[in-house]
């Protein structure tokens, strides 16, 4: 402690200036990296963007890059179906887990449960994918072939984003000031009334941020989905139909692609980035307008 006291007093004259400069540089770097990624994607996809009309990526007959057909739309819907399906399942489950930890479980159970969820968050995606491929897909196959399907990818994605949702919702709910809850109790609200009327609205911003994070992960997940989705390029007409996501498309074909084929894969990367940007904008708008 004495050493630190000495050190702080010794540095205090210039440390602020240095520190703020270092932070500025750090922030600038982070922004530049994002900009460079966008620039890189544009640069790599430029060769095809120049001689293929933009509409062709949505109106071509199918995705057969070696036969000059570049329809990306089935992969966009594949990505959207899989991630929104997973969110639909994981949001209620995640928030319910968080509520259970804070309002219903005994402290000891709550700690144990939270550790378990944290463990789930740490499992690498390829392990989920492998489990899906060897267990979940054959199971669904017995029910309705071919097994590798939209349903399998939704279930795997749900497992993967559930811990993110549960932990962020938990953090948001824990941060709700104790006074609010005490006031609610004092007003004679039931436990559910307190949760629904006070805790959830007060934690809304944090929960929405968690959902956004989870959605980003669901859209960007590659390996696990690649292993269970079937990867057939088509608009899914049922839960049991195989789909291909944008990320899986890049991972499957990038290593083998040359020329136009390669550049089109960068276009699908660009599309993915635009999708995530759109999501961020929607979330920002949601955070601003829907006040309680």
């Amino acid at each position, binding site marked *: 402690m004495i050493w630190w006291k000495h050190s702080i007093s010794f540095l205090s004259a210039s440390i602020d200036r240095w520190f703020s400069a270092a932070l500025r540089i750090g922030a600038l770097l982070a922004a530049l990296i994002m900009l460079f990624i966008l620039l890189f994607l544009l640069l790599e996809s430029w060769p095809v963007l120049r001689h293929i009309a933009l509409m062709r990526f949505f109106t071509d007959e199918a995705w057969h890059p*070696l036969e000059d057909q570049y329809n990306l739309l089935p992969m966009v819907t594949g990505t959207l179906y899989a991630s929104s399906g997973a969110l639909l399942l994981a949001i209620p489950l995640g928030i319910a887990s968080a509520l259970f930890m804070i309002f219903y479980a005994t402290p000891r159970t709550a700690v144990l449960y939270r550790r378990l969820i944290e463990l789930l968050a740490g499992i690498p995606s390829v392990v989920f994918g492998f489990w899906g491929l*060897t267990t979940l897909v054959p199971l669904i*196959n017995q029910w309705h*072939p071919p097994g590798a399907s939209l349903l399998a990818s939704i279930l795997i994605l749900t497992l993967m984003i559930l811990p993110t949702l549960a932990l962020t919702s938990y953090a948001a709910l824990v941060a709700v000031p104790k006074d609010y809850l005490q006031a609610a109790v004092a007003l004679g609200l039931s436990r559910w009334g307190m949760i629904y009327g006070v805790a959830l609205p007060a934690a809304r911003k944090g929960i929405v941020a968690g959902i956004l994070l989870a959605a980003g992960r669901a859209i960007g997940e590659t390996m696990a989905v690649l292993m269970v989705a079937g990867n057939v390029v088509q608009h899914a007409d049922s839960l049991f139909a*195989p789909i291909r996501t944008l990320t899986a498309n890049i991972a499957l074909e990038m290593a083998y692609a040359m020329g136009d084929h390669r550049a089109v894969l960068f276009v699908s990367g660009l599309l993915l980035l635009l999708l995530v940007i759109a999501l961020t904008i929607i979330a920002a708008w949601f955070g601003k307008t829907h006040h309680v």
Partner: protein
Amino acid sequence: MRWMKSIGAATIMLVLMSLTLSTFASSHKLVLTGSSTIAPLAIELGRRFESLHPGVRVDVQTGGSSRGINDTRKGVADIGMVSGVLKSAEQDLQAFAIALDGVGIIVHASNPVTTLTNRQIVGIFTGRITNWQEVGGHDARITLVNKAEGRSTLESFLAYFQLKNSEIKSHIVIGDNQQGIKIVSGNPHAIGYVSIGAAAYDAQRGVPIKLLTMDGVAATVANVRNGTYPLSRPLNLVTRLPPTGLVKQFIDFARSKQTHDLVEAQYFVPVSVD
């Protein structure tokens, strides 16, 4: 502040040391890029070559046959790995076959079907035959496993059966051989095609898959060797110019008798020239 300076100095020293070390190490380096079918064999070949030629480092990177061709043309790689016969547009490169590999049709081990004619295979892959009953199996829907666009196994398969990829009505699209074997071993009604080498290797180790007899010829390494199995392809090393020096030494080594055990360990058929 003094301790910070010494840490800084130590870091700079470390960086400089690793830089000098890496420049020394890369003085004799062979870079191979291309086909993922050949890569496991090339890594083994490289290991043995390194032990025979101290100071030489062999760097193997995958990325598909088309990358092998591209990198060799550009001079990024010393040697490209290309599976399949070179196309007419690729005749500017020198090709040296180091092994033969067949592409075999695989199904689950519990599937009663053991043989298919070419017509039946084409029927199944174009969606005209959708039930195993039509080719002598159980009453169950066929699950078709196809390879992703650009893979050389897909190209060999399409070329042999004179199909276009857009005609294939697949249910599952996969990347490499291993993924195909995993899917077929987990699905009793699936059919797919993979490198015979990879399938034979796994079937030997108890994975529940079997290779089908195609048009009366069993898909075995022996039949690929004697040339009776029709759907086979050479595994090539390619160079831009006639090879000299270290590149020539490596290619000669890869085609010599002293590497046959490595080729056979991958369930490929050795091609020998000496």
